């Protein structure tokens, strides 16, 4: 697939060109708001994931971009053109459907050629582009088969070739790996990632699998109840979740509630049922504005910490700030790491420790330990 070379126009005001821009999209089904005033800008050439539980609106957003559904309000701009007037079959986007939606009465070759045939591309070009597209996803030898004779992974590749042959500006993928077994899924994740890098086409990838999103995406929009809760790259989303929902949807997270006791230029302290905790101030960005506004004396706040950030030490080791006495309630040893359930006062904390050193022994159930919650690992949440 040739990557369409972009002429460097001096006209572009923003440094990064925009593939999709959504402004205030609303879509309501009965009383359910599938999209509740969603605004998002997707950059040209990025691997963008929409991540969230089922019913969060991620597939609705994808269908609206594809033109298979219409928003009740809001504007959608695709490659600089208002998409409202463009019907699905004329949009420069193609979709890989969750069910693959391969045409059962056509061969693999005919499936891949379908889009070009509908656009009345000359036959010689169709042959060339179909062959190229099938080679790209390694299904050339399957061209005479019917979809009914293919495995799940093969169907997936055919669906991909059928979309990519049209050289879309944006490729939409609706949980494309959902129906495959774990091993195949991992393999295809890597392939999809490479493919996107090679082609430079904008990918919008819908998934409910947080690991999938973290592994593949340049940026992730975490969606919940029709809204985008947080939009950032994988590391920021994982390390600095803004909301309770994001913190708990991606990986597991310990939440601690408390009241603010002091705030200074670098950090703030809270009084929680666990004890007094010192937390670094969140960076002063627009994303953290809501959280920072909560930092008033006696203001109720929630802070989060990932299990792997909690450090455990023997009871008799030197205690300092953000250290609490805890008891090992339960543990799960899984070779590379050990997961602990800690009881600290009335709090239950989960922690994970990497068994890094040779002969590392994990703590036994019932043992009293010290747990340390580093102030830089604690994140202030919006809610």
């Amino acid at each position: 697939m040739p990557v369409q070379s972009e002429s460097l126009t001096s006209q572009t005001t923003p440094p990064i060109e925009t593939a999709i821009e959504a402004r205030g999209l609303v879509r309501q089904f009965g009383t359910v708001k599938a999209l509740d005033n969603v605004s998002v800008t997707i950059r040209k050439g990025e691997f963008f994931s929409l991540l969230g539980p089922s019913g969060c609106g991620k597939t609705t957003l994808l269908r609206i971009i594809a033109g298979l559904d219409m928003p009740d309000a809001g504007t959608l701009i695709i490659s600089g053109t208002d998409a409202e007037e463009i019907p699905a079959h004329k949009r420069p986007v193609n979709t890989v459907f969750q069910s693959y939606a391969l045409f059962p009465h056509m061969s693999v070759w005919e499936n891949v050629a379908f889009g070009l045939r509908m656009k009345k591309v000359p036959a010689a070009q169709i042959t060339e582009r179909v062959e190229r597209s099938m080679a790209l996803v390694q299904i050339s030898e399957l061209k005479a088969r019917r979809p009914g004779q293919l495995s799940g992974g093969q169907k997936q590749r055919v669906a991909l070739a059928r979309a990519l042959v049209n050289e879309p500006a944006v490729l939409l993928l609706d949980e494309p790996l959902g129906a495959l077994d774990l091993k195949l899924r991992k393999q295809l994740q890597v392939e999809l990632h490479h493919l996107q890098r090679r082609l430079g086409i904008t990918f919008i990838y819908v998934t409910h699998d947080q690991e999938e999103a973290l592994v593949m995406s340049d940026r992730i929009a975490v969606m919940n109840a029709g809204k985008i809760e947080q939009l950032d790259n994988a590391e920021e989303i994982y390390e600095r979740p803004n909301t309770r929902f994001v913190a708990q949807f991606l990986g597991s997270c310990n939440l601690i509630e408390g009241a603010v006791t002091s705030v200074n230029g670098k950090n703030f302290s809270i009084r929680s049922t666990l004890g007094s905790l010192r937390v670094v101030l969140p960076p002063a960005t627009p994303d953290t504005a809501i959280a920072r506004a909560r930092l008033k004396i006696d203001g109720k706040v929630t802070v989060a910490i990932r299990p792997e950030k909690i450090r455990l030490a023997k009871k008799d080791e030197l205690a300092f700030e953000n250290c609490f006495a805890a008891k090992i309630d339960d543990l799960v040893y899984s070779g590379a790491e050990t997961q602990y359930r800690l009881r600290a006062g009335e709090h239950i904390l989960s922690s994970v420790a990497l068994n890094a050193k040779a002969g590392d022994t994990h703590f036994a159930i019932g043992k009293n330990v010290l747990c340390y919650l580093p102030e830089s690992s604690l994140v202030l949440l919006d809610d």
Partner: protein
Amino acid sequence: MKRNSLALTLSATALYLFLYAPIAVVIVYSFNAARFGATWTGFTTKWYSTLLHNSLALHAAENTLWLGVFSTVISTVLGTLLGFGMSRYEFPGKEVFGKLLYVPVFVPDIVLAVSLLLFYSIIRSWLGLLELGLTTMILAHVTFQIPFVAIVVRARLVGLDPSLEEAARDLGANEWQAFRHVILPLILPGVMAGGMLAFTLSLDDFVVSFFTSGPGSTTLPILIYSSVKRGITPDINALSTLIILASVLATIVVAILQRIKTSTRNHIK
């Protein structure tokens, strides 16, 4: 157990006799040499050859065929579009309309026939159109055939993954292309089965045809009815046998098409 299976065999035999004995009698007597009455006087095929020289019967056969073909083609196209529209689009009153589709199926033929006759005569007196004849018969047959086609086609469409049509549109097909290249090929067995059903209904219909026919548009069922009033003749038996044969063939075709339907279902889902 044995008693049960004996009872089962007996009742099954009785049922089959009840269903098929009259038909068998007509077929057997179409080969009876006797000109009148029910006595068997020997085997002959001469009634079939008299039939071939009976210009009234040939003309009626021709009418029946044209009526069947025209009405089936029209009702299959309209019924398919109706079935597609019913499964594909949302519109106010869709629920009620879906139920109304069954009304022509349940309304007694005689009521439908009288209604159509009345309707056509009103149109005729207002607009001077629709003289009774083959045209009114075709229209009448289309009226009772459409629901059958639509119901069969709709059943087929229900099993179709809606994302197939969306995929077609996504890949650049407009609505007509998506229907023509994706939907139609996949529902074709259903469309054909609906069409064959419509054709057999037309072929066998007497009541509606009788009421809406005009001079010169006599069909085989009407011909048989009027001949029988003058007494059953062996060539009528031969004619009936041929009609039975045609119906059986059509039924077999429908059954084969239905089988295609079930064997492709797993591909469709």
